[in-house]
Structures are given as C-alpha cells and as structure tokens.
C-alpha cells in the first residue's frame, strides 16, 4: 500500500518537496505541498459542487470550514421534509425552496468572506457547458442519479477538470477520483441500468409485489390523473411479445375513455366505477383467457359490496369524518380513515376504502392537476392511492400485500440515506480534493465505507487506470444487437442513445444517412427528422442501418464519440429483452452462433455482478435499485415465463 513509504518521506527536507514530476507523487498528500502553499491553493482555487442534497450540504460546510473561498453550486431540487433528517443546512421553514440557494446562503453565513454562486438548475442544461466547467480547478459530485453523473463525467473529461465522485446508501458509501488520462473515468466500469419489467407481466400475469406497485404507479396513476399517453395500460402489447398476442389485444386493449369521468359523475361514483372496472371487469376478462392460467392460479375478482368498511354503511355512506366536514382538499385518505400506522399492512376492506377515498380526494381537491399529474414519492395522497391500488391487485393475484411504508420505498426507488454516512463521505471527498490541490495524484484513491468494520471501517484502493475499452474516455466500438426491421429510429434515439448512453443531443450518421438533434435546426430539417424517426432502421435512406452497419454517434453537448456496430437479429424476443436491444463492449459469445437462441437472454444483462453505489443524497436513485433482467428461458413459447408469488 506504500503507506510506510509515504509516511517516511514526510521527513524529507522541504526544499526537495517541490521538484517537479513523479517524485512528488509518492508523497502523502499533506506533505506534497508545504502547509502555506496548500493553504494558499485552497484559498485560490475555484471548485464546483454538483448537488446540494445529503452529501452536498455536508460538502459545502466542510469546504468552507476547510478554507475554500471560491465555490459554485448547482442543484435543481427544492427542499422536502424528508430531507431534514440529514440535509442540515435546511430548516422546516425552507421546505419548498431551492436547495442550491438556501445552502449557499447558509454557508455564506458561516464564512461571510467566501465567494459562492448558486444555480438552481439541471446540470444537463446548455448553460452548464464545457466552457462553464473549464473555469473550475476541481468538480465535486454529490448527486443522486446516474444520468447526471454520466453527464458530469463527460463534461469533466471534455474540460479536462478532475472530478471527485461519491455515493451513499444506508451505512455504505464510496468516494472515487477521476482524472483524464491518469485514472479511470466514472464510466470505465459498466453501471447497472434500471430494472424493467415485461409489459405483459405487469399487465396480465404479475407474480411479485413489485409488479403490482409498478402497475399502479406507472400504468394506473397516469391513466386516472396524469397524461393518459404516459400509461400503456390500455395499449395493445407489443407485437411478438407472447403466445396469443391477438387474443390479448382483443381482450385487454382498453378504451381509454372509460377511465374518464362522465359528465356530471360524482367523484365517489367515479371511484367506485373504477374499482369495479379494474378489480372485477378487467380481472374477469383476464381470467377468461385460459391459456394464461394453465400453470398459474387464475386471478380472483373482488366484490366491492363485500369490501365496504363498516363505517361506510350499506348505501355507500361516507365515513363520519367526511360527513363532519373535513374539507375536500384534505391531503390524506388515511388520515380520514384513521389508518395512521404506515408500517401496518391494510386488509382488503381498508385497501378498498383508501382506494375509493384517495381517488375522490384527488378529483375533488386537486382538479387543477388532472391531466398532468405525475407520481411523486413525497406526495402522500399519491402514495396512498398506489399502495391501495397495488394491494387490491395483489389480492386478486394471490400476492402478498405491502405496507404504505414499503410501497413508498418500492415506488419511489428510495435508497436509505442517513446523516452519518453522508458526513463521512463528504469529509473523504474534501481530503481527495486536497490531494488534487497538493498535486499528489498518486495518492488519490477510491474509498469504500462499510457497515461495520471489525478491522477497519473505510477500505481503500489506489485509483485504477483508465480502461482502454471505455466508450467514453477512449474511442471504442461497441456492439449493438437489435431487430433492424422492428426498431425505429425513434426507439434507437430514445432507448439506446438517450436512455442507455445518456446522450442529450445526439447526432448520428451511417454511410450517406445522417440525423441530428439540438438547437439551431431549420424548419425543413425538423420536418425531415420527424419522418425519419418513424422508419425502422433497415428502411432508413442510404441502404438503411442493417447487419454489420457501423453507426457513428456523437453529442456536441458532451464529450462523447462512439461507433456502434449493428448486429441484426430477426428473432429478437421482446419478452426476454424488454429493452429491445443489447449493448456491450464485446460481442456476446453465444451470438457468434446465430442459432443458439436461449443464450441471448443469459448475456443480456452484462452488469449482473456490478455492485455500484450510485445513489446518495435525496435518497432516491433508480439505478441503485437496479437488478439485472431476470434470467428467464423460453421453455414452451411464453407460457412458462412467469413464476410464483412471494409471500
């Protein structure tokens, strides 16, 4: 580990410390520069803190208390009550205000002589471009999502500014240093992508609580209150997805208008109609599709009349609290119903009551949001509705029900976030920043914070060298496997380039075909793009993007350039590959023999073993909840593709 060496070299006489080059690198950071020199550098440099959340608050405080004087901070978010258990620069009176602005003000009060600039904004915005990043000596990340982390990584590479990256989850934490050309970049190691579920499983054959929660949050909620096009509850399943697509389409495709409130229909009536539609009519339709239930327990419809809570009486009377005039703007159905314990699991009656009441409250009290409402984990009424709706569906399918607390964690992809871990990690970030300023690059390290250390709490490794195969920090080629006759340019752009590769304004070309996004396009270019987007890749101009085509991709707003080599697979199975493509640095081994079909599904999750701590701060991170696509093998078509419930 070189510890003895670094420590013993501390006694070298001061005048030998400043000879340039590698001799400096072996010094432990505090001695690589004299105290005065380092102190001066700390005061002179300009640093960017990205994120003013759990890590950000601690980081800003530790920076100013350590003598940093020129700081800028970016954060898009506003302050929530659930931040207050760790984001200590914020008080209850700040709820709803900008994190960046409030945090900057708070640390300015600690050290009035500092120069701090706060931006409330998304780091993806074009004002935070390469020139913006070039102004900094060092960038310190305290982010909560993979997309932003990747974007910052690429900008730092382009601007050649060193980056200190961090993440926490519960008692676990990690800090790493990324210097272009010297250490690996954030994306040299593949990161897990978020878990996706086959639409058919969600819609027809759920067998786990998470399937019901995702159904309620992503399909039902937008259909009832949001933009219906955001839900695919009523869409036909994608072609080629299963055994009897035609039958599924016939039976399950839904008229979206039945989810709309009729003229003069009361909110209570609408809620009851929805209940009967979702948990009786639709369940019975599914039940009648016998093919689906050959090896599964068929779902059982619910009878609303049998599930009314005693307080509702027989004629659909409302609970006493509602009669007593609790205003319809009340924010919680549970409060009215006296279900105050977030950890208890409601029975069917209680779920039915919460469902009915939450739908009605939403319609009556939040009518201005209808048509555009989005699920938010901090929106209590939305969480109540999703909990009840998911639980009722779980009952139909014989799956165990979840408490509000558990459902909220699943629906919001909530990562455990506590003050102590964030504080330790922030301290470690500042130490790494000091090493960068002392130019003690060789002592830069990746630190891992563990739950309980019988020997040590923080373990370390020297920052690894860049990976030659990295698509971001070296110019590499990657293999993209898809069905070029089915995947449209739109899907390629949305799912692969923006979704997986996190590009913002991609340009691409292949032979004579080219496509460009971004600002400054002419009207006719936009019209042309719109037409191109609808075409399957194989039918694009200039011979199409087909098997063995090389697709050149870049993004002017980031440092990104790559070549994607297309492998076309006619029999690509959407049920096994909900994402619709495979992207990897190497060809999946089994694909060299095109006839071996099952092998594709085994290689379709290249990140299976990657343990990554990429969450932090707001306690939310989709990618940290990521699990590889479930291993599934086709045995007989798709009749066998699902499993049992967990209880």
């Amino acid at each position, binding site marked *: *580990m070189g510890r*003895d060496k*670094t*420590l*013993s070299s*501390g*006694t070298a006489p001061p005048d030998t410390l400043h000879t340039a080059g590698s001799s400096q690198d072996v010094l432990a*950071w*505090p001695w690589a520069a004299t105290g005065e020199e380092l102190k001066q550098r700390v005061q002179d440099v300009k640093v960017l803190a990205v994120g003013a959340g759990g890590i950000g608050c*601690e980081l800003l405080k*530790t920076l100013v*208390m*350590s003598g940093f004087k020129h700081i800028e901070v970016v954060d898009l978010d506003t302050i*929530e*009550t*659930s931040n*207050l*258990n760790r984001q*200590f620069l914020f*008080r*209850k009176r700040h709820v709803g205000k900008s994190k960046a602005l409030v945090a900057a003000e708070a640390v300015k009060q*600690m050290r009035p002589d500092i120069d701090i600039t706060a931006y409330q904004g998304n780091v993806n915005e074009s004002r935070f471009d390469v020139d913006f990043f070039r102004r900094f000596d060092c960038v310190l990340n305290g982010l909560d999502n993979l997309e932003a982390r990747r974007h910052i990584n690429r900008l730092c590479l382009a601007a050649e500014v060193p980056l200190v990256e961090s993440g926490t989850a*519960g008692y676990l934490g990690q800090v790493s240093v990324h210097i272009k050309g010297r250490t690996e970049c954030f994306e040299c190691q593949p990161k897990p992508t978020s878990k996706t579920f086959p639409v058919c499983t969600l819609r027809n054959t759920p*067998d786990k609580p998470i399937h019901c929660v995702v159904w309620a949050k992503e399909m039902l909620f937008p259909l009832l209150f949001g933009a219906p096009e955001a839900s695919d509850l009523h869409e036909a399943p994608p072609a080629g997805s299963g055994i009897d697509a035609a039958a599924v389409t016939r039976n399950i495709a839904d008229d979206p208008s039945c989810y709309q409130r009729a003229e003069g229909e009361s909110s209570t009536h609408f809620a009851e109609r929805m209940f009967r539609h979702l948990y009786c009519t639709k369940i019975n339709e599914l039940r009648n599709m016998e093919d689906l239930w*050959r*090896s*599964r*327990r068929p779902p059982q419809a619910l009878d609303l009349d049998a599930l009314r809570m005693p307080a509702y009486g027989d004629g659909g009377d409302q609970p006493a609290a509602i009669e007593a005039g609790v205003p319809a703007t009340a924010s919680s159905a549970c409060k009215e119903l006296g279900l*105050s314990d977030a950890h208890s699991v409601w029975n069917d009656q209680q779920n039915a009551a919460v469902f009915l009441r939450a739908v009605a409250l939403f319609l009556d009290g939040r009518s201005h949001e209808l048509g555009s409402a989005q699920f938010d984990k901090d929106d209590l009424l939305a969480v109540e509705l999703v909990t009840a709706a998911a639980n009722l569906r779980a009952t139909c399918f*014989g799956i165990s029900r979840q408490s509000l*607390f558990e459902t*909220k964690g699943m629906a919001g992809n*909530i990562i*455990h976030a*506590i*003050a*102590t*871990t*964030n*504080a*330790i990690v*922030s*301290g*470690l970030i500042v*130490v790494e920043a000091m090493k960068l300023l002392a130019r003690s690059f060789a002592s830069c390290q990746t*630190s891992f914070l563990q*739950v309980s*250390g*019988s*020997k*040590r*709490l*923080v373990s*370390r490794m020297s920052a690894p060298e860049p990976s030659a195969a990295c698509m971001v920090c070296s110019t590499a080629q990657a293999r993209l496997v898809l069905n070029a006759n089915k995947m449209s340019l739109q899907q390629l752009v949305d799912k692969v380039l923006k979704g997986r590769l996190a590009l913002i304004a991609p340009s691409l070309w292949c032979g004579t075909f080219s496509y460009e996004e971004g600002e400054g396009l002419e009207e006719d270019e936009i019209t042309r793009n719109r037409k191109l987007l609808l075409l399957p890749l194989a039918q694009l101009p200039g011979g199409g993007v087909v098997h063995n085509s090389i697709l050149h991709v870049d993004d002017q707003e980031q440092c990104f350039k790559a070549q994607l080599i297309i492998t076309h697979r006619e029999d690509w199975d959407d049920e096994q590959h909900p994402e619709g493509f495979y992207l990897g640095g190497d060809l999946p081994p089994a694909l060299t023999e095109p006839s071996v079909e099952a092998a594709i599904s085994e290689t379709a999750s290249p990140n299976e073993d990657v343990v990554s701590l990429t969450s932090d701060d707001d306690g939310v991170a989709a990618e940290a909840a990521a699990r590889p696509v479930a291993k599934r093998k086709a*045995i007989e078509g798709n009749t*066998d593709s699902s*499993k*049992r*419930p*967990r209880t």
Partner: protein
Amino acid sequence: MSEESPSAEVSPHSNAVSGETSMDKSKRYDRGIRVWGAHGQEALEAAKVCLLNAGPTGTEALKNLVLGGIHSFTIVDGAKVTPPDLGNNYLLTADGLGMPRAQCAAECLKELNESVSGSYVEETPRSLMTSSPEFFKPFTLVIATQLGETDAVTIDGICRQHGVKLVLLRSYGLLGYVRPSVPEMCVTESKPDNKVDDLRLSNPWPELAAHAAALDLSATQEHVHSHVPYALLLLKATKHWQEEHGGKLPSSYPERTAFKDLVNSWQRHVDGIPLDEENFTEAISNAHKVWAPPSVSSELQAVLDDPCAASITQQSPDFWVLVAALRRFIEQEGDGQLPLEGSIPDMHASTQQYLDLQRIYRAKADVDAAAVQAHTRALLEAAGRDPSAIPLPDIKHFCKHARSLRLVRCRSLEEETGPGSCRGSALRQALGQEDTAANAALYVLLRAADRFHQTYQRYPGTFDGEVEEDAALLKSQANALLAECGAAGGTVGGGGGVSDDLAAELCRCAAGELHVVAAVVGAVAAQEAIKIMTGQFVPLGGCLIYNAMACTTSVFAF
C-alpha cells in the same frame, strides 16, 4: 434530567411549536427508519445524550444525532467563544464571541430539529466529573470529545458505574480516534450482509419429509413437474441417495457429481432431449445446501457458551434468559439445530406449491418458537420471575434472528491503559504487521502525546521551532509506554519501538482540531452511537484510528 441538575434549558426557537405531528415526524425520519426500523427510531427518540466539549469534533457528532431524532441533549463545556472557534466550528458566529460556547452550540443545534430539546452546562467536563459524577446518571449515552487519557478513564468509570453508554472521540491534527465503551452489548439484530437459508434438506422433520414423500414426480403433469420447488426435489433426491448409500450424504467430489446427475436424471425429456426445466437447474445449483447446511458460527457459539447464559438469576437481562432457553432448545428439541427461521428463499414454483411449502416451514418455526417459549417460562419461573415476563412476539423475534446473535464487550479504558492489564502482546503484534503498523504506532503516539501534555502542559509540536526536539521527547514517551505495557520489540521502522518519522509527523500535525478530520470522526462516532442506542448492527469492539495522512483506518481491541 434530575431536578437539581445544574443545566440550563435553551429557549426554543421563536416560531417553534410544541412538537411535530406524527405525520411530520414520519416524513422527517423516513430515510432513517428504512435503515433501523420504526423500533430503532423509537429507541433514538427516547435517548438522552450528553456531549462533553463543544469543539468541532463534538458538535459534528452531536449534529448527526440531533438530525436523526434523539430525545434531548445536554452540552458540557466550560469555554467562552473565541475568534479561533469561528475558524473551525461552523455552529459559532461572531455574534457569540465572549458567550458560553456550550450555550451557543446548544442553541444552534436545537434549530436543526425542533423535536429535540437541548440544554447546556457551562463548566469544564473535568470539574463536573469531579464535583458531581451523579450528573451523568440520567443519560442514555455520553459522547466525550477531546479528553486526554486521564479524563477519559474517569468518565469511562463514571459511565460504567451508572450503566450509561459511552463513545469517546478525538481529532488530533490529521489523526482521528473513536472508541465506543459499553461493558456489554447484546445484538439480536446484527443485520449481516449475507442471509443464510436453513432448509433442513438432509434432516427434514416428519411433516416436511412426509410432504416430499407424498409427491410422486413421475405421476405429475408436465406443468406441475416443471414447477416443483427445488427444495422438494433436493429432499427427494437426498432421501433416495441416503437409502442407497447406507444413510450417508454425498461427501466426495465424484459423489456430489453423481448426486447432481441423479437430480438431473429426473428431468422430463421430449424425444430424448431434456426440457431444461428451470426448477431442476435451480436444484442443481443449490445442491450444496444438502451437504453444507448452515452451521453455528463461532461468534454465535461464543454467545451460547457465555457464562451469563449458564446461570440465570432474577437479575439476568432478558437477552441472557433467551440465550439460556436457546441453549436448552438446541440440546433437547433441536437435536443440535437452531430453531427454524421459517422463511424460504425465492424458488421457481407454482403459486400453490410454493405456498404449501412455505406453510410447512412456517409451522415448524412456530413449533420451535413455542418450545423456546416453554424453556423461557421455566427459566423465568426458576429465577423467581413472572413466567410470562417475556412475551411470545419477543421470543419469536429472537428465534428469527438466533443465527446472527452477536455480543460485543468493550474493555474499560482503565483495563486498556493500565500497565498490568493492557494487551501488550496484541499491540506488539499490530505494530509488527504491515497493514496495521503505522496506525498502531499512531495509537501509541496519541497516548504518548497525552503523557507529554501531562509533563509539559502543552502538546508536542505546538511551537513551530521546536518540532524536532518535541519529536524526540514524544518518541521517548512512546517507547517508555511500550516498555511499560510489554509491547516493546514491535518493529516499526525496523529498530523496535516507534519510528522517528512517525513521531515527527505527529508533531508536524500538532494537536489542532481540523474541520475535515472532525467531520469524519464526528460522523463515525455518531454512527457508533446510533448502533449502540438502537441495539442494531454490530458496533466497533475497540478503538478506530483514522489516519488522514495515508487515508486509512484500523480497528484495534487492545
């Protein structure tokens, strides 16, 4: 807080209300509850914490506990706010210059969380420890910061006498030190990283064996066949194997391969080609659970063998009563096994087959818990306590976590530092191992620095011009200390004892509280405090040294 305690309440923030509603609280503490559960949060909300010294290290630690939602805190500090405080303690501002440091820190900390009440005592910890050791009695936990060794030994003695838990911590230049001190912490919820499945495949109880026997694989329809949970396949295969091998389990590599082949041979074939049924694939990849069932870990065995479990008296804590009952269960009904936990892992199976199997495991867990309950009642009765003093839900909770019970006993500071009782050989060993040598030496130097302070009334390296002389003096203190506790001869730097280089580095760092070190060790200490107060996870059994020069940590139980 007792009536006559000399502490002063901090006036509540102007717009603070009497407390947050339970809804607000559950929102505020949501992320913490996801780590330590609602019962852990309740324990925190009942905890009364005392902080000694409100420097940056102390306030960093306490800040994290106030955010987490403790009941109340009291700060003991005798200093007034001076300009240097403003440089390293973010809680203090120029408005507070000349005011009691304890008061200023308490007021600012209270603002972080209106549900937490705060008070302060303007007195040095040393004088309070001397004049009224009883003062510390009402607290759940004391966080003692920046104390030299003598004061640390004193507060440790007081806390142990009153059953108050203690976490000591220090920032010393680029060196950090955290030392929990609890005489005994019995952890039921140690929350290990890896969960072990206890399936009893080679020794099923009668109901499980009958359930497996009742299934005739060859007579099942295809979709049932491909949805038999792998546990049942392995149970059947094990029984089959044992019948053919005189009751023995597969023990060699060829036997184990043959066992897997046996399972594989039961797969359905179509036109001579196996169907690759997923439940069979799972059975083969889980076959090791047949011949390598979970064993009793050495940590658990130490708990079971502890003298506290051997003789249960009226005063025995419930934990030890339950451990004694657990021992009896293992010896009697369990026939060497722990009570069954009752949950089963994810398996490829039909809903009905999975639920049936789960029911059988759960029923057995209930039977086992009932047996442990019977032992518990008998033990309580024999000790002269109410036999129903420990309710069944608590017993079930204990049984569920029986496999991961842990016990942490921290030595007292007096034992650790006393010439006759310190673990010189452990120290010598740590000094001689490459990965711990530097940090063990820093541990020695930190203690030597306290002796230096006792002799010269200042810490080494305080004055720039005297670094080299101080380093020599510090080194001789360190070597004297090593000799005294029988650890001389450790080979740091080759020559035995503590190297010149390290001594010089400690002097160059001097004793100041650097904010960045304070932030790290304050948070580490708060984390240990939370583990201790919630009784969850396993706290450090000794002291942690954080070396910010090399960016390493080590834990030592000397």
